[in-house]
């Protein structure tokens, strides 16, 4: 080491502070190492992830293809609906990417230990903000692979598109992504700069209200049959014109894609240019603005992190104790602690609310798609699909949030281990918590579905019983496998869920759902002519009982395996 106490070498040589290139290089190196270790250390998990991606991709492709095929049956509907599909698709993408970019940008710019480390070194704030902006854009571009490409391929598969449709579509997507990226970055900066914790909560509630109003407006726009046709069409076109305004990015992209589909290449290029120019200009503007005031926002975010105006008194403070009234005192304490943690972690409850909120939105609108008529012709298909959707959402939730519960207790095992609780009781408390949340939401959604479909009570009870059973099985798997294949010492719940045990649990959960779906399909086929308007015969009851018992037995077995392992383990 040099002993000179003069200025550092890099300043003496007139070198510039570390730039975005160096930061990106280190990120690329880390990504390369991550890929290599994923392939080498967890090939099964890697293969599963790839497999699920391909499955989701294919599912979306066939979904888009079916929608376009449906529209193409009547040329007039196709002419109106296909541009609308693109417009809504890119509008939804604009909103979703803005919000997700804002969340990613906030977490990585203002809440990550990396920020603390790099900002104490001679890294220019502009370099740091630019690196994070590029990182969020890369994350955003996943939507291109997952949503954009199947949409493009489905469209091209049905119509005879010119060759330049493909590069133009991809270019539109890539030029579009920086717009929500920049808006998200600005939003994240604004939240960090001006809002404290109380105000952030109010903003979140405000955004949810705006979202609800938007959804209501959208549903009113799509409502058919309550006005005379011409008046309805006029109102519909007026409302739709609001989302196709000349200043909206989704309109540029949808019009550009439409032009490229119809062989109007010059017009398509014009819209591409407009999208690109706006994307670049907005990015430049936002990067400059955010970088120049970044340290002020960073200081504000750090200074208000643990500060609250009032002592934290939760309005639902007594709720967990009430919810688990049926549990013995000690188990109730553990389950209530988990429920409190759940409510205080927006990542957990917002994901559940969004997924099931969308589900309920769909369920409420099921009768509309049949022009307000009962869905008699659909027989058992809709309840079957509802059951499948609820089960898969539940499997995602339990794999991501319930599975890590036991592992996360590893850090507090000195506390939990000292309590007069057996491992079996500990798992019972975890299971009670998981079931309360999962079955509560799943059964609630099923009741909404049954009401909307005007299901007779016996059929509704049958559907509720099977939903309860699948919740039982999935929670049993998540808690049981969580105890059998734990990652004690790991603080990051996402890493626990993505580890070997988490992968095993996910595969088991999906297999359980598929097996129960096969049973429900058998039930549907048996009743295919009568639908749920018919009476429930013995055979139907028997199938439902077998399916439900299967779910519950699977859950019990997993819990038993987990409890035995935890009992033997040295904590």
């Amino acid at each position, binding site marked *: *080491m*040099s*002993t000179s*106490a003069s*200025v*550092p*070498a*890099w*300043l003496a*040589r007139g*070198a510039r*502070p*570390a730039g975005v290139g*160096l930061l990106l290089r*280190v990120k690329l*190196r*880390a*990504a390369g*190492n*991550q890929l290599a*270790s994923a392939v080498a250390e967890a090939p099964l998990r890697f293969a599963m992830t790839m497999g699920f991606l391909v499955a989701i991709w294919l599912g979306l492709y066939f979904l888009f293809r079916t929608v376009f095929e449906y529209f193409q049956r009547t040329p007039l509907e196709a002419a109106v609906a296909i541009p609308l599909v693109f417009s809504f698709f890119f509008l939804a993408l604009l909103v979703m990417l803005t919000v997700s970019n804002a969340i990613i940008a906030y977490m990585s710019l203002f809440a990550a*230990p*990396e920020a*603390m*480390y790099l*900002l*104490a*070194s*001679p*890294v*220019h704030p502009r370099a740091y903000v630019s690196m994070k902006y590029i990182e969020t854009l890369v994350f955003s571009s996943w939507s291109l692979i997952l949503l954009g490409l199947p949409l493009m391929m489905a469209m091209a598969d049905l119509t005879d598109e010119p060759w330049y449709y493909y590069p133009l579509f991809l270019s539109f997507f890539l030029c579009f992504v920086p717009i929500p990226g920049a808006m998200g970055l600005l939003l994240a900066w604004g939240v960090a700069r001006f809002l*404290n914790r109380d105000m952030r909560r109010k903003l979140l509630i405000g955004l949810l209200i705006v979202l609800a109003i938007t959804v209501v407006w959208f549903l009113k726009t799509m409502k058919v049959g309550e006005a005379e046709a011409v008046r309805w069409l006029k109102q519909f076109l007026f409302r739709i014109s609001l989302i196709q305004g000349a200043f909206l990015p989704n309109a540029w992209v949808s019009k550009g894609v439409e032009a490229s589909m119809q062989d109007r290449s010059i017009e398509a290029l014009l819209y591409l240019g407009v999208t690109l120019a706006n994307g670049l200009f907005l990015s430049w503007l936002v990067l400059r603005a955010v970088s120049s005031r970044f*340290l*002020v926002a*960073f*200081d504000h975010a*750090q*200074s*208000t992190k*643990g*500060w*609250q*105006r009032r002592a934290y008194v939760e309005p639902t403070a007594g709720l967990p104790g009430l919810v688990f009234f049926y549990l013995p005192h000690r188990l109730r304490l553990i389950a209530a602690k988990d429920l409190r943690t759940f409510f205080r972690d927006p990542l957990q409850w917002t994901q559940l609310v969004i997924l099931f909120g969308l589900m309920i939105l769909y369920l409420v609108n099921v009768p509309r798609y049949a022009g307000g008529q009962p869905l008699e012709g659909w027989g058992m298909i809709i309840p079957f699909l509802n059951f499948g959707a609820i089960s898969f959402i539940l499997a995602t939730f339990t794999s991501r949030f319930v599975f890590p519960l036991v592992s996360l207790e590893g850090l507090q095992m000195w506390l939990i281990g000292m309590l007069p609780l057996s491992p079996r009781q500990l798992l019972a408390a975890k299971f009670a918590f998981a079931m309360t949340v999962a079955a509560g939401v799943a059964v609630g959604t099923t009741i909404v579905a049954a009401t909307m479909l005007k299901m007779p009570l016996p059929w509704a009870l049958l559907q509720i019983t099977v939903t309860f059973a699948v919740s039982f099985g999935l929670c049993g798997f998540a808690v049981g496998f969580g105890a059998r294949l734990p990652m004690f010492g790991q603080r990051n719940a996402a890493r626990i869920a993505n580890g070997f045990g988490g992968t095993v649990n996910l595969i088991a959960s999906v297999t359980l759902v598929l097996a129960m779906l096969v049973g429900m399909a058998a039930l549907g086929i048996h009743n295919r002519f009568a639908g749920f308007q018919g009476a429930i015969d013995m055979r139907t009851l028997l199938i439902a009982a077998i399916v439900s018992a299967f779910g519950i037995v699977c859950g019990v077995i997993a819990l038993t395996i987990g409890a035995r392992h935890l009992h033997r383990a040295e904590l």
Partner: protein
Amino acid sequence: MTTAIDIESVYKHYGRKVAVHDLTLSIAEGELFAFLGPNGAGKTTTIKMICGLLRPQRGQICVCGHVMGTDGLAAKAQLAYVPDQPFLYDKLTGREFLSFVAEMYAVPAATRDATVAELTEKLDMEEFLDKLTESYSHGMKQKVVLAAALLHDPRVLVIDEPMVGLDPRTVRVVKDLFRTRVRQGRTVFMSTHTLEIAEAVADRIGIIDQGKLIALGTFDELRHQARSQRSLEDIFLELTHPSNGAAGDVHER
């Protein structure tokens, strides 16, 4: 003697809570300064302001003559910060991380290689340096972060709880490293709860409580200030919790 860190009438509050209240403190070049205080006294806030991570609401901080608020990059180039929770990129090896830091401070490759070799030997890192840092224990991470902080030979080393997680041999090595740096004219600003280490290695000690600097000086000066000939632990307890004095007496008897 020139000033390495100059803190002038600095205030920092979080809402209604005052974290640092009218703090004025100068640390000279070639000085090892130990910053002590109870939990929540304002130590980490002060350190973050020195490193430019937080901004004082009033007053200013200079590092090697550069005002942190207006000339932050030049100031940060002169210092290295080791936080209490060591940060490393999980998916880089320790060696890759050190190379990244060296590049960030434009350390020439030959100097980097020589320094990394020297620090690897001193801190006993050879066995794990080429593994991904996600597999490191707290102590291993602390060693790598410390090595990264020393790579560019900073004029000021700011370090929050330096000895947590280190084995006794490494604690000894780190203490020697600090003293060597101070003899070379570098400055070490260390926040710690380990009073024995502060007593053993610090040139001067500052005690902060409820955001205010309540004692400052060499160990002997603090003894004089507290009118006591006892250990730093007793002086610390006497100053930060005066009611504990009796308990201290009982303990001593």
